[in-house]
């Protein structure tokens, strides 16, 4: 009877009785190579515009780390038609807001305005794609700002250096070994003519995706897109994409970092396949099993039962090239990283040894389904996702469908990827210890 019920249970969910996400949109390319996606959503009188450039910290040279992010700051400096210091003010004057971010693989700019200001947003964004103007005052000011940003987020913040330390230890060859914020010494060396070269190479329409979502008329917007972005010339040169392939890691890497912290932390980073691949999705589901919700394996064991950790998280750092499967745990006061690591290892071995229970499998599927549905609540969020799905997966419709890929992962898959990728020789382990323990 129980088997029958559980089979029925599984069948129900395997059949894809998943709540549907139905975001409709139009997409096409301009002759200059710009990919355009338009999505109408009239629920609020606002419009979100996103331009994602396919350039990030991995396109940098080793002696110019932080360059792409520094350049992101310079993209607010204006154009022949927008005076220095006016860019953000113009958007605010119109009742809008704007921001940008740089990651390992892309740099994304977004402006959200009341819907009657859509032309302003398009004019401004196309101005800086076509003819950004940077002078040395701008460069020197932002150089200082970027260094303060690094201090605030990394040097003055407990555990702030975790990502930086993890990447440099896990990657020996690939540009992922440095992080987008880069290093102050190279930030200091970046020269104004280098920015010009960078701009001409990467900030071209054929290296970008434009998304406009919100209170728009599709046909009218197509006309506006042609008006503002149509005259921007396609980039003439080749776009540099790093060719380095990180060789398989064959020995465990371990290191200790002394930081201004009170509670020790453990970081474990395993190499994993790039986003969009079958095993990447299986590892993604594994993170939900391990730390998604209060009843998840790691949370229940380390935080609730053994009281070893204040918090534990497994995170898939899914990137365009193979990234890392991360585990991060902050230990309770008086507990050592070794104790925490040992228990994490026990839980990992359990996953490898036995397939998860049927009910657990149903649970993590429900959790991911719920999460997927709730992702799409704002026009700005939807626009960012559409750009991301096009740029890295070549399929914007994944905004509706990516959940299906997660739902195709089986219990066998999860067990297999744990066995295959969560091997000691494939990992970097960092202990973060309070400075008071240095010399012990």
């Amino acid at each position: 009877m129980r088997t029958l019920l559980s089979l029925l249970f599984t069948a129900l969910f395997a059949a894809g009785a998943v709540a549907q996400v139905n975001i409709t949109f139009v997409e096409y390319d301009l002759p200059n190579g710009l990919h355009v996606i338009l999505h109408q959503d009239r629920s609020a009188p606002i419009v979100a515009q996103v331009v994602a450039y396919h350039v990030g910290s991995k396109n940098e040279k080793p002696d110019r780390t932080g360059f792409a992010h520094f350049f992101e700051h310079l993209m607010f400096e204006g154009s022949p038609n927008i005076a220095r210091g006016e860019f953000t003010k113009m958007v605010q004057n119109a009742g809008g807001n704007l921001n940008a971010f740089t990651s390992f693989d892309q740099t994304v700019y977004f402006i959200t305005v009341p819907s009657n200001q859509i032309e302003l947003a398009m004019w401004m964004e196309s101005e800086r794609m076509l003819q950004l103007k940077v002078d040395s005052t701008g460069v020197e000011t932002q150089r200082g700002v970027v260094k303060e940003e690094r201090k605030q987020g990394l040097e003055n913040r407990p555990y702030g250096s975790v990502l930086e330390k993890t990447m440099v230890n896990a990657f020996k060859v690939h540009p992922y070994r440095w992080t987008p914020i880069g290093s102050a010494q190279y930030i200091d060396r970046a020269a104004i003519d280098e920015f010009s070269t960078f701009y001409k190479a990467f900030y071209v329409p054929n290296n970008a995706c434009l998304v406009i979502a919100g209170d728009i008329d599709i046909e009218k917007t197509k006309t506006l897109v042609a008006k503002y972005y149509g005259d921007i010339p396609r980039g003439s040169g080749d776009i540099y994409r790093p060719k380095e392939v990180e060789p398989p890691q064959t020995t465990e890497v371990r290191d200790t970092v002394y930081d201004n912290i009170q509670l020790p932390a453990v970081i474990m980073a395993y190499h994993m396949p790039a986003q969009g691949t079958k095993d990447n999705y299986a590892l993604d589901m594994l993170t939900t099993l391990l730390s998604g919700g209060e009843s998840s394996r790691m949370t229940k064991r380390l935080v609730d039962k053994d009281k070893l950790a204040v918090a534990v998280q497994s995170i898939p750092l899914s990137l365009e090239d193979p990234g890392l499967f991360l585990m991060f745990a902050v230990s309770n006061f008086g507990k050592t990283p070794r104790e925490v690591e040992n228990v994490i290892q026990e839980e990992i071995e359990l996953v490898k040894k036995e397939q998860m229970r049927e009910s657990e499998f149903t649970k993590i599927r429900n959790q991911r389904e719920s999460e997927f549905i709730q992702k799409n609540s704002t026009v700005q969020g939807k626009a960012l996702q559409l750009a991301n799905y096009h740029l890295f997966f070549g399929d914007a419709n994944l905004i509706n469908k990516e959940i299906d890929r997660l739902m195709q992962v089986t219990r066998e898959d999860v067990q297999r990827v744990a066995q295959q990728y969560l091997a000691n020789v494939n990992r970097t382990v960092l202990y973060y210890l309070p400075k008071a323990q240095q010399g012990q």
Partner: protein
Amino acid sequence: MKRFLLILFACAAVMTTAVQAQLDRSKIPPPGPAPAVSFPDYDLLTTSNGMRIIVVRNTELPTITIRLVIDREPVLEKEHAGYVDIAGQLMRSGTATRTKDQLDEEIDMLGASIGAGGTSIFANGLSRNSEKLIELVSDITLHPSFPKDELEKLVMQTTSGLKARKSEPDQIVEVLRKKVLYGSAHPYGEVETEETVGRITREKCVEMYRTFFKPNAAIMAVVGDVDTKTILALVEKYFGGWKKGELPKPVFADPQGFEKLQVALVDRPSSVQSVIRVAQGVELPRTSPDVMPVSVMNSVLGGGVFRLFTNLREKHSYTYGAYSSMGPDELIGAFTAYTSVRNSVTDSALKEIFYEIRRMRDEPVESVELDRAKSFMSGSFVASLEVANTVANYALEIERYSLPKDYYKTYLKRLAAVDAKEVKRVATQYLQPDKMLVAVVGSSKDVKEKLAAFGPVTMYDEEGNVVVAKPATVVKVSVDQIFAGFLQKTGGKAKYAALKDKTLELSGKMQGMDMKLKTVQKAPAKLYQEMSMMGMVQRTGYDGTKGWTASPQGIQDLEAGQLESMKVEAPIEFYSAYKALGYKAEVTGVKEIKGKEFYEVSFTAQSGPQMRHYFDTKDFLKFREVNVSTTPRGPMEQSTDLFDYKDFQGYLVPTRYEQSVMGQSMTFTLEKCVFNTGIDDKTFEKPAK
């Protein structure tokens, strides 16, 4: 069913050419006609036992969010500071019919999440599970069991968090700001600590629940793909058994405020930035008509990319960001200007912050700026209506604070009515820069003197307690006198003139393992050191110009940083050699250590470690040497205490050394000490292999 994409269209090329001729990029495109703004409606009902329910229907996504808020006065927690929130969290950890494990499993299985705290219980999930979620919230709200072992767990986790707080500058500054600005007799000035949390008992948690959790004090906001009738029926069904009752209505005296500007500083030696809060209390209840002009005024001063940001970041590059916030409150509202700046510009940044605050009071704001602020606020408000939960929060506010029912419907109209005169009036009325609190967490060594320019500086620890400083002793002795005294005491002029070489052998323990250390020095400044532990030997040498190190791994030249350290350690008599090494020495105070007093002499140089040496004020015997080196993670201090001086061939030498680095210590004992035995120069030269 497959979904079909709407397909791209083909005429783009033709259209583009036709339109291009019309674009004049030099002109800023004018806006179209302003779109209509509709404020979403919501339903407000009351159940038979007095619970208020707000329902905001939003069918965009098949989700439901439930927020149950207890509308009560703030609580003065005193020696149990933290208990209200912990009692709230404990409600989630078990009910009469469900253990925490069971709750966790059930909630995760729904793909939902439920959390609880001192003021509210929050649930979120898919709307098809609405009844289940309401039932779970009701179980947690009506039948919490307050398990003792779960309380212990929460206390343990909270305690860990409080320890971690000691390293987080943003959290320390918030503790500092609250405690100093409001004082610990006010509920807003209370700070939970390990001590207060350690006192929390199950009884205290139950007491909190019985005092405050009553249906007539509860407002539940439900948002999502729901309908009001169904929700009301479900709430009546599951919450019907909840009994009404009265809540206490305490009255709190307003915090005193300051007669003049105060500076509060928490020393964080490793800080590379000062985390700054310029703060003041403001009497501004939510029903005050000044709330809107104050909001506009704050926007111009420090909302987003306005005056503080433009000045401190765009103009001066002091910081990644500088902002201000100013909000109403029924007890006492708050103004805070906040930023993090590198140490060296702490005073410059504060100067600019006060410059901008004063400018808001002294000069009417220009119409360009005012219009921009109002446009920005208007746009933000309209954009916020996109999120149904925000609408629910607005509705909650109207209920809790007895605001006019159309408060948010009239928002844009009231915003439009604010003019420059109003902005200046509220700036002058509410901002008192001469009486503000400057709260800083940073490196005292780098910033304390800079802060003194703004007002009297009081030092605090990370929990907001005043640190009592010893009165500074007036020091009348010079460095030369101290060094001469030390040399006289430990051998005398003649002996030091005759000093050719010195050999020390020490033994010690490191991590339970025996260690031997040998040091050989030859006048004027050659140094050889040998350390052996567990059969492994590490040797270093400095011959006056070059330095090397040899270990089982091989022989290497010393790196720049290590070479500098060796250079400083090498002179056989440091006090006649320090100037040539580029150091300046000065007496920087008198320090009390374990009941005795010592002169502090600080050595500073352009490069190389900074040092402090401590000499007994009575006999000039040196008690302590401190080395401060700079690492990428900040300054690192290494300290050696010297005990039990004994006579060796007429020289006084310490026979016990206690070395500590940031609180961890190792002891070394002197086994052998000989002078002037004749040491070959070869000892200090780099070996062949």
